[in-house]
């Protein structure tokens, strides 16, 4: 039963996944089903890294995960009503791309994070104001363009300078061009080139924080 669900998810059989979830919710612990879907997502992320899956596959996976989570919601309100953490997210100034950002928002919300989405082309000042109002655990900065590096750096520097609880904040950056040097140069804690890996990083970061 578990294997069938995991396989269907990894094979991106969206209709089959939803039917299996509906069926299995009557027979299994919903948290276990949820864990199986997360396991599938990790496998999908690995397939992406291995150059076998593509962005369109990640989008299908994220959407299926979102729909499955909706089916599970009534069960979770009884068993899992605790918010795992608060995340403030936005695409940095000068960048209008939102694919990666939207995928990770779907995944994070499905997994019990509270997400404040600031949208696209968000200035450093707008990020800072939102941090002061929302007091998040994590600030996630997204950007597809190479020119996003400077606005990311500017945003992190401004928040670190102006926000009093900055030691309690984790900065994560996401975008296809991001690498280790990029993360180090701009003063972020973590970085990711894809949303599914980003979800894993955020889960680990919240646990270890």
């Amino acid at each position: 039963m578990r294997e069938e669900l995991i396989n269907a998810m990894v094979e991106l059989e969206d209709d089959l996944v939803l039917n299996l979830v509906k069926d299995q919710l009557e027979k299994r612990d919903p948290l276990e089903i949820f864990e199986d879907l997360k396991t599938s997502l990790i496998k999908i992320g690995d397939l992406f890294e291995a150059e076998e899956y593509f962005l369109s596959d990640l989008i299908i996976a994220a959407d299926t995960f979102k729909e499955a989570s909706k089916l599970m919601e009534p069960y979770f309100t009884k068993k899992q009503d605790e918010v795992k953490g608060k995340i403030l997210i936005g695409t940095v100034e000068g960048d209008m791309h939102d694919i990666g950002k939207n995928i990770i928002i779907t995944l994070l919300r499905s997994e019990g994070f509270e997400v404040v989405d600031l949208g696209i082309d968000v200035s450093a000042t707008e990020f800072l104001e939102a941090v002061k109002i929302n007091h998040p655990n994590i600030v996630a900065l997204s950007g597809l363009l190479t020119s996003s590096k400077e606005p990311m750096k500017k945003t992190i520097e401004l928040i670190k300078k102006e926000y009093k609880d900055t030691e309690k904040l984790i900065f994560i950056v996401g975008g296809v061009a991001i690498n280790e040097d990029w993360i180090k140069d701009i003063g972020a804690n973590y970085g990711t080139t894809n949303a599914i890996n980003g979800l894993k990083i955020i889960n680990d970061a919240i646990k270890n924080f």
Partner: protein
Amino acid sequence: MSEEKKSKKAKTLDPAQRMLKAMAFLKPDRVPVVFFPEFDLMADFAGKPVKKYLADVDLQIETGERFKERFSGAYCAVSIYQPYATAQALGCPISDPEDEIPAVAGHVIKQTSEVEKFKIPESAWDVPGTGDWLKKIEYSLETGIKPAGIGEFGPLEIAGQVYGYDKFLLDMRKKPKIIHKLLEKCTEFAIKFLSEWTELIGGYSTVILIADHVSGFLNKKLVNEFFAPYHKNLIEALKPMCGGMLYHSENRSYHFIDQIGDWGYNIFHGQDWAPKGDLKKTKEIVSNLDNKYALMGQVPGRDVVLREPNDKVVEKQIIENIQIYGPGSGYMLSTGGGINRGTPLRRLDMMIKLADKYGRYKTKNKLINPEEE
């Protein structure tokens, strides 16, 4: 004629001739070098903020000529720029930053139901974006400067811009008929715009470039269903007006590297075409195709030419590309994407110098080894 004499004769080639020979799998004197500088790099070269640079056609012409002169050993694809012209023509707002490359700032089609009613302009001249661009080109021609080549985004990239990329990719699965309808319209407008541009410059362009990175987001099945048919239509309409069709994508492309020639393209310009980083594998695949096309790239512009601190590392990658792809002709050395702002110009000189040293042809199938000379 001996090979040595042939080689000496070929030394008179200019960068454009060299490129055309490589495109035709003939023997140029050496591996051609092709540069695609980004608008922000050109603005820096002109010493002006991007916004001012883009607004000033005379400055663009003058800077383009200076850039070509500075890098005379390379074919420099400098042109008159109008960022996201097609998206703007179809109704997308475009951002207007002072000193950065503008971007599409919003989508036109908000609801799926709007696709059916979505109208494309009668002529690319009639609307902002493409109309502005054509007028700039017309002005440039009046000054006696013919901008290098013709090029714009392909149908899927345009569709992503007007519809929103994530929704566009998701609806390939959820609402394929709608997406096909949208792609038909985007293809029709791309053909209209590029045909009108070609007519403006006299009915013929050496090369027509189509940039469409969306193929790299799609698995092979989706490439065949949503990408290939529309690009084939585009090429069928435009190929009679040009010497060669050039496909550009900086995105993943190893999964369709065997198909690009079948679609009708003559050149592929990219930087992520090697499966699992195996550059030789791509050479092997492409060399054995029935429908051959030339490769242009694959030195990573951003991660290597711009960011790599050590010149020796950059040099090694450039030589590796020349030595793997040069033999047999059909190769042009280039950064796989546009050349980004901040790229040290000495590295562009380095590419030309290394092509001169390591990329000279002995025969079509062999390069001269400078160490053995």
